[in-house]
């Protein structure tokens, strides 16, 4: 077992620009024999000398030689990570947190609802389900971004859209004159999918208010609250349940989350960070 407080240095092997403020980097995990994680888990990434931030793993769990994160530069630490180049070292602690309920979804229909950067933590779950597609029922993906220019992983999205065993819809809150796709909020897509609602597992990730609206819409379609899972975010420091920074009601997001069933988290969703 790895020591959760131990910081490992890993080198960047590839950087990809996703949108104007979002980038993906792959870290070389070969020197440590690969990096194993469950979809939905996150790492604490340290920009040397500056600070540490929780970032979900966005790569393929079946390809442990690289450790992939997709990061939106919003403040000092994420901007420092954005400035790094191929070959630069990044401090990594993890993996931490609870995973998406991929195994609970066996034999059931699955709906993945992602908003903005929220597609990043869900991508490993999508990879995992696609790698054994036949053991799930329908696989529906609803993705909402702010504008067409903010859509993540656009080439990959087109690949998924081309599969006959995936129902995928993308929408933007604000279109532009060249945008030929759907305009409107991601919750507006959910009725389009033909799901066996009572036997559906939903995985939601995005801004909290978007998840609240989406969860309500799914419940109104008949998806049981216990089968709706959300990934929560709170400010973090230790990542291992000892500092109390990420408290959400009686739980710690770093240890008891970030993925929670709606039944656990619904009463706490409007509670601010403590």
């Amino acid at each position, binding site marked *: 077992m790895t020591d959760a407080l131990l910081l490992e240095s890993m080198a960047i092997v590839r950087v990809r620009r996703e949108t104007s*403020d979002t980038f993906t980097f792959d870290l070389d995990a070969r020197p440590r024999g690969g990096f194993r994680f469950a979809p939905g888990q996150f790492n604490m990434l340290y920009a040397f000398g500056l600070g540490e931030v929780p970032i979900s793993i966005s790569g393929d769990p079946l390809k442990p030689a690289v450790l992939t994160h997709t990061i*939106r530069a*919003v*403040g*000092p630490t994420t901007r420092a990570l954005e400035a790094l180049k191929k070959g630069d070292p990044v401090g990594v602690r993890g993996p931490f947190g609870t995973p998406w309920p991929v195994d609970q979804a066996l034999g059931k229909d699955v709906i993945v609802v992602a*908003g*903005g950067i929220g597609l990043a933590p869900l991508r490993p779950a999508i990879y995992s389900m696609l790698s054994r597609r036949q053991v799930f029922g329908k696989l529906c993906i609803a993705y*909402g*971004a*702010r504008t067409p220019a*903010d859509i993540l992983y656009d080439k990959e999205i087109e690949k998924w859209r081309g599969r006959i065993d995936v129902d995928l819809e993308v*929408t933007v*809150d604000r*279109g532009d*004159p060249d*945008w*030929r*796709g*759907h*305009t*409107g*909020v991601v*919750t*507006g897509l959910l*009725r*389009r999918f033909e799901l066996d609602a009572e036997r559906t597992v939903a995985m939601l990730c*995005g*801004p909290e*208010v*978007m998840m609240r*609206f989406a969860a309500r819409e799914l419940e109104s379609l008949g998806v049981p609250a216990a089968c709706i899972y959300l990934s929560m975010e709170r400010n973090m420091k230790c990542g291992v349940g000892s500092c109390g920074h990420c408290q959400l009601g009686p739980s710690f997001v770093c240890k008891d989350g970030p993925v929670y069933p709606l039944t656990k988290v619904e009463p706490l969703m409007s509670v601010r960070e403590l």
Partner: protein
Amino acid sequence: MNPESLARSLAQHPFCKDLTQAQVEFLAGCAKNARYDAGEYLVREGSLADALFLVRSGSVAIESHIPGRGSVKVDTLGPGDIIGWSVLLPPFRWHLDARALAATVVFCLDANCLRGKVQADHSFGYAFTLQLLAAASQRLTHARLQQLDVYKAELR
């Protein structure tokens, strides 16, 4: 399409899911099928609201014309959605454009006929208005979320 088969296919539309069979048959008296090619307008902003559309297949953009910016798309509707939930409300004018993005098939319900039926049979009118209200409430919820601009970065 004869009245019986029109009523049968109308009953499949989500808008009719809480209406009784008799109510759907009553409603079918105002309905006809219509098809729009990609690019064709179902309704134009400012013109008379003379129909309620229940989308069966295809895709429809809801747009507004903004001088200097042209047509701005605010929503995209598809199978199961309705267009024209203000059909019962004066001044009976369209507030926005609706344009087919792909070949689109709809049930087109005549507005005068609908208003007459809602007046003539209040229990039908109640059930019908409840469906309109549900659709309007859902659209309003989506519009509120859209207005919140939740994906915008709050930069420090």
